[in-house]
């Protein structure tokens, strides 16, 4: 005989009574394993999505608003098995037309991708290469095909933002002809799994809309001959190694043209000029050429002395050494032609009028006065080349034909001006000091227009080589980054395994309580046997260990079966997430996947919690004395002492709850919600302690006669206090959680028209594919965009980033960045701040971190930051800058975006022109449609997509609400288990007391009266549980009710609580009916 044998004998003998316990262990294990496997499934889904969007791609270089030579990809080939592909990616809006030419279907936010055959080296092709595309032909991905209703052979149209090497916001850039229309024919709808159909370098909630066209054709159509803005890399090396070697190769093989720089050799004039199509040479370039002649040439609207004026002239700021007596300060050298025309003499003051360009292409004319210190010849070799290639100017034969990016009045042009243009082109008419020119005309794009070297044979190559050495392509963002490692690990924004354990927490607890109850019932039945073991010399510890060992076997089987059932649970959850609960994952599609290790963790977790529960139950039992156990009754603690202890605890918790409530009265956001939730929990504990003490009082409160059968029932509920309290606790916790969670349900329509609401009081949310360069709140801006009528809107600059809204499952590192004028939102007092003081904080300049505001859900769940945190964000020059989270918005339409001030935005992203996100006001809801129509019509070519702000908010709210649905559904299941637990307790109580009930029947009570007795006893527990839960939950949700969009959904809660009450009563009634079935009187004999 061994102890192991004893344990297994015992286990086998009590197998039937263990079934219920086993069931509880299985449910707990299943929920735990199932929840963890949901995490696996999300991870696997993200990996598949990453595979679909990246194929073999490991690294990529992506330039925002800059373009390099497509040939660079060929130049940096490392070996035969490492592939590089140039790609030109442009944003587009698309539509398909019906036979009559009317627009049938639309899609915005399309990725138009120019590719050559090297692109397919990165695709995991299962079959042959996709068909070669001719000009005007396109491959499209399944999502776009579905959206536009296209198939092979169909025609569709795209509207693209015409890229410009010169940023659209740059001074003197031309804001015309911003878009182009392309007509394309579908060659094939590509395969999502094998043909990189869902190619994207950014993780997203849903696959992108993709159109693949021949690279050369797209370059031609977008006037970017030979250029690309992204390069893909893949090969046999590990990604980190590939990134390193690709960047080294890039550094060795890049040319100035890849940084949009050009060395122009002019042997005739004896100069070599460094210029850029971006007009302005940036600081990095100037730093590398510090020892050379530098010039900044600009357009003067007018050069004037008294009433004599010359319109539209070039004026150059030149560095020391350009002339023998190079001007300094406010001195100027004018040309002979100008001196003659103005009748100017040395010593005269000359006024120069010029435009500067504001943030929204607002032109501001300024004036500066110079003193003439000399007159130089009208033109010398190399001077006319000082004028950069200003668009709209450089290619014009006549001055009157100029179309510069400033207000231009051709009527001011005189004949001599026209003659000058024909003879001397853009030769500057005046020269000033470079420092002065930079003070007047330097901008965020650069501080010079030309760097000049003296010509010598073969000097060009030397200069180029020296510049390539000094300049780093990474400074302009030309650098390979690892795009695969993080994506392919399937790291999600949230730990979905943990999340679903949280959501199922109450279900696990309910299963464990039920399991504990059933186990303890089984053990209580064996009380005399346990008493015998104690009597024959087993210590309490040994007996407990024997029971625990038996429980271990049970828990192990339960956990193993639970893990198996958990896989089915996961499949059910995944199916629901792909259908009913789709809102929680942005209506994406999850695949089921289970990792063996996760299942093992589930088994271990299930084993642990089941064993812990069993330990809790046997711990108490083994403390009972042998005598009591031999009599078949586990010992009850001394009533008075336990009751007093419970009352003291109740009082302390109640005082704690009140104190916490007061302390958190004026707190903000999470702190307040957390504080009140804590107060509610304390109150719940207090209520349960009161119930405990009250049951104790009932148990010892003999003496007073029963006033009714119901009162007798009440007294009965105190007989097994532990069981009664478990029922009350289970129900109270369930009600508490369901009510507390229900109150966090968001109503997107609440406060929809109010500034404090999640819409900020805005009627429409707009996004355009093509940036709008003007302030649409001004008459000029609306005029430029041909918008009829008035609009009142707040517009945001956009730097593309990861989708950081809660619709995206992927972990996001770089959310989309928006730049806004904080005053525009502050004046309107738009949105509610969950944390933080207001929009003005964006203008703060303390420290080196840029203040930012973000929606609380995005901050907490997607970015995992809190207010005060500082993060690094990549800037346009290839480096990073620091962003400090300065505030959280409560539940807003701006979810997914990081918002900084416009001033900071343009400082860090000078090339990101115009505005692409709009919050549009509508004073009168009836006028909303008219405003939407006007904007849609005027900005059709810009791919403007307008969404009612409430709908956008509803989409975001749907995520939170769906999670609440899941929680409530699982909580409902748990309550079902809870009420089953109540039923089991009733059944057990009644079965134990069949003799007593038989006696009551013997002395004349009818069976219906006995039924009522049982119902009264246990109905009381039900009501106590509900009351405790409701009271404490009301305190816990108090602050949540003041948040925008949140309020107590009384109907839902009434239904929930009513449902629990009815379910509890039903189980009680069923259990009582089952226990009282048949003849009771024979039970008397057993007494």
């Amino acid at each position, binding site marked *: *005989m061994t102890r192991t044998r*004893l344990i297994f004998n015992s286990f086998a003998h009590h197998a039937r009574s263990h079934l219920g316990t086993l069931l509880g262990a299985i449910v707990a294990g299943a929920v735990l394993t199932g929840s963890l496997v949901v995490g696996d499934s999300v991870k696997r889904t993200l990996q598949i999505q990453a595979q679909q969007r990246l194929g073999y791609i490991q690294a990529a270089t992506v330039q925002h608003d800059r373009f390099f030579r497509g040939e660079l990809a060929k130049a940096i080939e490392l070996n035969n098995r490492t592939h590089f592909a140039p790609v030109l990616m442009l944003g587009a809006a698309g539509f398909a037309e019906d036979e009559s030419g009317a627009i049938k279907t639309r899609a915005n936010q399309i990725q138009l991708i120019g590719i050559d055959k090297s692109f397919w080296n990165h695709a995991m092709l299962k079959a042959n290469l996709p068909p070669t595309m001719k000009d005007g032909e396109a491959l499209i991905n399944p999502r776009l095909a579905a959206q536009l209703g296209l198939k092979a052979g169909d025609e569709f149209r795209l509207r693209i933002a015409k890229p410009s090497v010169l940023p659209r916001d740059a001074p003197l850039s031309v804001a015309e002809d911003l878009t182009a229309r392309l007509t394309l024919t579908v060659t094939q709808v590509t395969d999502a799994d094998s043909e990189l159909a869902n190619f994207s370098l950014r993780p997203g909630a849903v696959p992108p809309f993709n159109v693949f066209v021949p690279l050369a054709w797209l370059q031609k159509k977008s006037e970017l001959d030979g250029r690309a803005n992204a390069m893909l890399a893949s090969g046999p090396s590990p990604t980190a190694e590939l990134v390193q070697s690709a960047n080294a190769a890039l550094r060795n093989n890049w040319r100035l043209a890849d940084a949009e720089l050009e060395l122009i050799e002019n042997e005739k004039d004896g100069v070599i000029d460094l210029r850029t199509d971006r007009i302005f040479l940036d600081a990095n370039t100037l730093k590398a050429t510090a020892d050379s002649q530098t010039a900044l040439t600009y357009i003067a609207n007018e050069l004037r002395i008294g009433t004599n004026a010359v319109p539209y002239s070039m004026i150059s700021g030149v560095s020391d050494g350009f002339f023998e007596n190079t001007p300094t300060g406010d001195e100027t050298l004018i040309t002979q032609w100008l001196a003659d025309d103005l009748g100017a003499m040395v010593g005269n003051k000359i006024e120069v009028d010029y435009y500067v360009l504001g943030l929204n292409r607002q032109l501001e004319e300024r004036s500066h006065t110079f003193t003439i210190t000399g007159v130089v010849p009208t033109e010398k070799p190399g001077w006319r080349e000082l004028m950069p290639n200003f668009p709209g100017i450089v290619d014009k034969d006549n001055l009157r034909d100029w179309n510069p990016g400033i207000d231009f009045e051709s009527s001011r042009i005189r004949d001599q001006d026209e003659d000058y243009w024909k003879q001397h082109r853009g030769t500057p008419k005046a020269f000033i000091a470079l420092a002065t020119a930079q003070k007047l005309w330097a901008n965020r794009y650069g501080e010079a227009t030309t760097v000049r070297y003296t010509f010598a044979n073969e000097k060009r190559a030397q200069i180029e080589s020296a510049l390539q050495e000094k300049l780093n392509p990474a400074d302009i963002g030309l650098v390979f980054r690892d795009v695969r490692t993080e994506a392919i690990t399937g790291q999600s924004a949230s730990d979905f395994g943990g999340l679903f354990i949280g959501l199922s927490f109450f279900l696990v607890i309910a299963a464990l309580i039920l399991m504990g109850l059933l186990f303890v019932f089984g053990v209580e039945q064996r009380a*005399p046997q346990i008493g015998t*073991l104690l*009597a024959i010399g087993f*210590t309490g510890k040994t007996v407990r260990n024997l029971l625990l060992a038996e429980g271990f076997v049970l828990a192990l089987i339960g956990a193993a079966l639970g893990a198996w059932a958990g896989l089915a649970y996961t499949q059910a959850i995944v199916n629901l997430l792909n259908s009913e609960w789709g809102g929680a994952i942005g209506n994406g599609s999850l695949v089921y996947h289970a990792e063996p290790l996760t299942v093992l963790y589930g088994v271990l977790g299930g084993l642990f919690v089941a064993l812990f529960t069993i330990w809790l139950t046997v711990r108490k039992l083994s403390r009972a004395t*042998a005598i009591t156990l031999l009599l078949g009754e586990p010992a009850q603690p001394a009533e008075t002492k336990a009751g007093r202890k419970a009352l003291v605890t109740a009082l302390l918790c109640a005082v704690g709850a009140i104190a916490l409530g007061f302390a958190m009265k004026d707190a903000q956001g999470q702190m307040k919600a957390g504080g009140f939730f804590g107060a509610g929990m304390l109150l719940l504990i207090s209520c349960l302690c009161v119930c405990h003490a009250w049951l104790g009082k009932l148990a010892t409160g003999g003496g007073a006669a029963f006033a009714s059968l119901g009162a007798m029932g009440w007294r009965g509920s105190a007989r097994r206090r532990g069981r009664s309290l478990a029922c009350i606790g289970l129900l109270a916790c369930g009600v508490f959680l369901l009510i507390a969670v229900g109150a966090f349900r968001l109503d997107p329509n609440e406060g929809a028209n109010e500034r404090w609401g999640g819409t900020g009081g805005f009627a429409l949310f707009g996004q355009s594919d093509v940036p709008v360069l003007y302030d649409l709140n001004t008459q000029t801006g609306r005029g430029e965009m041909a918008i009829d009528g008035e609009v009142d809107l707040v517009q945001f600059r956009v730097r593309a980033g990861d989708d950081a809204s809660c619709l995206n499952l992927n972990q996001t590192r770089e959310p989309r960045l928006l730049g806004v004028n904080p005053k525009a939102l502050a004046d309107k007092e738009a949105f509610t701040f969950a944390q933080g003081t207001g929009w003005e904080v964006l203008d703060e300049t303390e420290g080196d971190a840029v203040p930012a505001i973000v929606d609380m859900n995005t901050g907490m769940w997607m970015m995992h930051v809190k207010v005060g945190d500082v993060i690094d964000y990549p800037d346009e020059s290839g480096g990073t800058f620091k962003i400090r989270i300065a505030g959280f918005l409560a539940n807003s339409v701006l979810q997914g975006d990081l918002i900084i001030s416009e001033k900071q935005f343009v400082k860090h992203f000078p090339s990101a022109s115009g505005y692409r996100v709009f919050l549009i006001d509508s004073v009168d809801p009836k006028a909303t449609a008219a405003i939407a129509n006007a904007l849609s019509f005027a900005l059709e070519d810009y791919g403007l997509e307008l969404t009612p702000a409430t709908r956008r908010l509803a989409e975001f709210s749907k995520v939170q609400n769906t999670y609440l649905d899941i929680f409530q559904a699982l909580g409902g299941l748990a309550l079902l288990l809870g009420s089953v637990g109540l039923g089991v307790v009733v059944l057990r109580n009644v079965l134990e007391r069949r003799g007593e009930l038989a006696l009551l029947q013997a002395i004349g009570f009818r069976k219906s009266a006995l039924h009522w007795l049982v119902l009264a006893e246990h109905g009381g527990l039900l009501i106590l549980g509900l009351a405790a839960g409701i009271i404490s939950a009301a305190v816990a949700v108090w602050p949540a009710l003041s948040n925008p969009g949140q309020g107590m959904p009384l109907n839902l809660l009434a239904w929930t609580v009513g449902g629990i009450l009815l379910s509890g009563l039903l189980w009680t009634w069923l259990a009582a009916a089952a226990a009282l079935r048949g003849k009771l009187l024979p039970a008397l004999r057993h007494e």
Partner: protein
Amino acid sequence: MPNDTPLLQLKNISREFPSAEAGEPLQVLRNLSMEVARGESIAIVGPSGCGKSTLLNLIGTLDQPTNGTIAFDVRNLGELDADELAILRNREMGFIFQSHHLLPQCTVMENVLVPTLAHGRTTEDDEERAHRLLDRVGLAARLAHRPGQLSGGERQRVAVVRALINQPQLLLADEPTGALDQATADHLGQLLVELNAEENVTLITVTHSEKLAAQMARTVELNDGQIK
């Protein structure tokens, strides 16, 4: 240890239980003193509620006296902790209850050997002794049976053997024949007396049965918590 030292010495034993109504405590045993010699067989008799079972529980260390001392083999039981008492119960005492309290999941042989597991492992000697004792009580053919397959008398005989398996000095029996018919009860009573002599074990039995009491060497009659 000299054989003339009493195995058990009870001095001024009292046992009170708190009243349910917070009044005067209920005094079950009052100032009771007695000695039990080694190898003696004693019957404790008296009316219901006189404190017979309480006295047996105190002697068996399942309960502690409110006042007074109990010495077992000259050891003061009040000075032993719970584990020491458990070891004492296991090695020096054997219990027989009115209800046999056999483990339904174990066979006859296993039930008998259960006490050997309390503080060690079952040895071959234990198994040999179990075989011998079961043979002695006429259950040699029932070794692999479970309690549910035995008659009331057989179960009680298994309980007797279980009580003797660790060769205790003291055998405590609480109404051992209470649940048996007369013939079986007589047979069990006779067996207890024989084993008392054969195993040289001191026997204290609480009984309402005058016949069983008469088979013991000494009868102690209790009335209202005191020896009459």
